[in-house]
């Protein structure tokens, strides 16, 4: 069993094991609703709420729910929170609810949420489950905000609806269309991969036989992301 400290439970989901940028989970909402910052924030907060509520309940009920029906019970709990989030958003921020459309209801099948219940909340204390849900939810919000900011600034010339550039700016419309979501995710993952691997230096000495490559690993001051995450398999 992997022993983790509370700090690790809280922080790893934000950056080192970011659900979108590292684990590549929840890509459907990350691509679909990040065409503006406001949509990204609303989607992130709704998912955060569902994840936190479900983790608390699943952790509290872990000894009550029979193992055979646990997935059904988790889905039931998650679906209840999603329906609540859907109605609350429709009542409080109707315009954003309209923009997000079916993607609020589809939080039910977001694998980040069911994954955290099965892998973590159903086995840990309530406190740890809350820390994990807060960290993972925050990581999801961070990822959506990165994509939403990138796409709204380039595709609409604004941030949170405030125009950034003068009237001479020609919006790069494709960035707020679906292809822009793929471009943005690709560039962000590229930057993230480069950042993770910045400690790995390839050296190719001149006199060695052609094609031989020596890799030297320089210690990573921030923490060995690749080894600690384990999410992308052996490196």
């Amino acid at each position: 069993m992997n022993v983790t400290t509370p700090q690790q439970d809280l922080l790893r989901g934000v950056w080192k094991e970011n659900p979108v940028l590292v684990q590549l989970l929840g890509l459907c909402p990350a691509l679909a609703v990040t065409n503006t910052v406001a949509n990204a924030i609303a989607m992130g907060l709704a998912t955060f709420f569902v994840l936190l509520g479900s983790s608390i309940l699943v952790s509290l009920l872990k000894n009550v729910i029979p193992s055979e029906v646990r997935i059904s019970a988790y889905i039931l709990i998650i679906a209840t929170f999603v329906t609540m989030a859907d109605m609350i958003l429709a009542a409080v921020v109707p315009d954003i609810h309209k923009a997000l459309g079916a993607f609020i209801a589809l939080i039910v099948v977001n694998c980040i949420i069911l994954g955290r219940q099965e892998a973590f909340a159903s086995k840990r204390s309530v406190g740890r489950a809350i820390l994990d849900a807060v960290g993972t939810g925050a990581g999801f919000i961070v990822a959506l905000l990165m994509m939403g900011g990138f796409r709204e600034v380039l595709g609409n010339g604004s941030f949170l609806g405030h125009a950034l550039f003068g009237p001479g700016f020609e919006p790069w419309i494709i960035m707020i269309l679906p292809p822009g979501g793929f471009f943005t995710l690709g560039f962000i993952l590229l930057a993230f991969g480069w950042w993770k691997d910045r400690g790995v230096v390839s050296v190719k000495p001149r006199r060695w036989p052609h094609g031989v490559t020596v890799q030297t690993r320089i210690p990573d001051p921030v923490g060995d992301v690749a080894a600690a995450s384990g999410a992308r398999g052996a490196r």
Partner: protein
Amino acid sequence: MSRRPDERDGGSDSEVRLPMVPDVGAEGNASGDAPRNVDVSALRLVATLALAGGLAGLVIVLVYQWSQPRIEAHQARVLTEAIYEVLGGPERYETAFLVGDAFTVAPPATADTAALERVYVGFDEAGRPMGVAVAAAEPGFQDVIRLIFGFDPGSGEVVGMKVLESKETPGLGDKIGKDSAFVAEFSGVAVPLAGVKAGRASGTPNEVDMITGATISSRAVIDIINHRLEGLGAPIRQYWASGAVEAGRAASDEPVSVSVSGPRTGGVR
């Protein structure tokens, strides 16, 4: 081998759980010994899920009751603002329902008003009717475009148009709601509308300049209005000419009339 549910608390993240398979013979144990490897009875599984489902339903009903009045109030506010906009600022409006082939502000009590076609008649401060607002929806380029337009049966002109909902292409088709020049084309244009490409207007009173790059969405808006008036134009003109609108003014204290400042109406259809 199946395990008891309370044993799984210490499991690790990477542990793989196998699907629970009931042990052969565990149910009908002839010796009468309590079978040790039966996990939980089917009754308990059903009872757990039924209880959870009941609780979930209760929670959802509570949230629904809290949110539904707010959602309806918002829809009514959006509708009222739209009617106000497309009719050029009426003092108040009232809803007229199409019963049979004639409009009336007082449908028979047996009629289901939610299923009836309706228009909204706007009145100015002096109580004179200004025009009727008509909601319409038809497919555009991407998805159904829902809009509302103001129609003055007296002059036979469309006096305003507002897109209520569309999923047209951002930056191109969505200009049908955002391009103020295009929206302004719909104030004071004779019916039936005819779309012309920008710069090719010949000056006839029923021409609407379409948006360059959004011809399909522009034409969809024009067609929606034309189709709607093909269906409802005759009863609207008849209602307007019959003096029933003036009669509705006299009954302005009845609950069917709605002040613009205090919305009370159903959703847009």
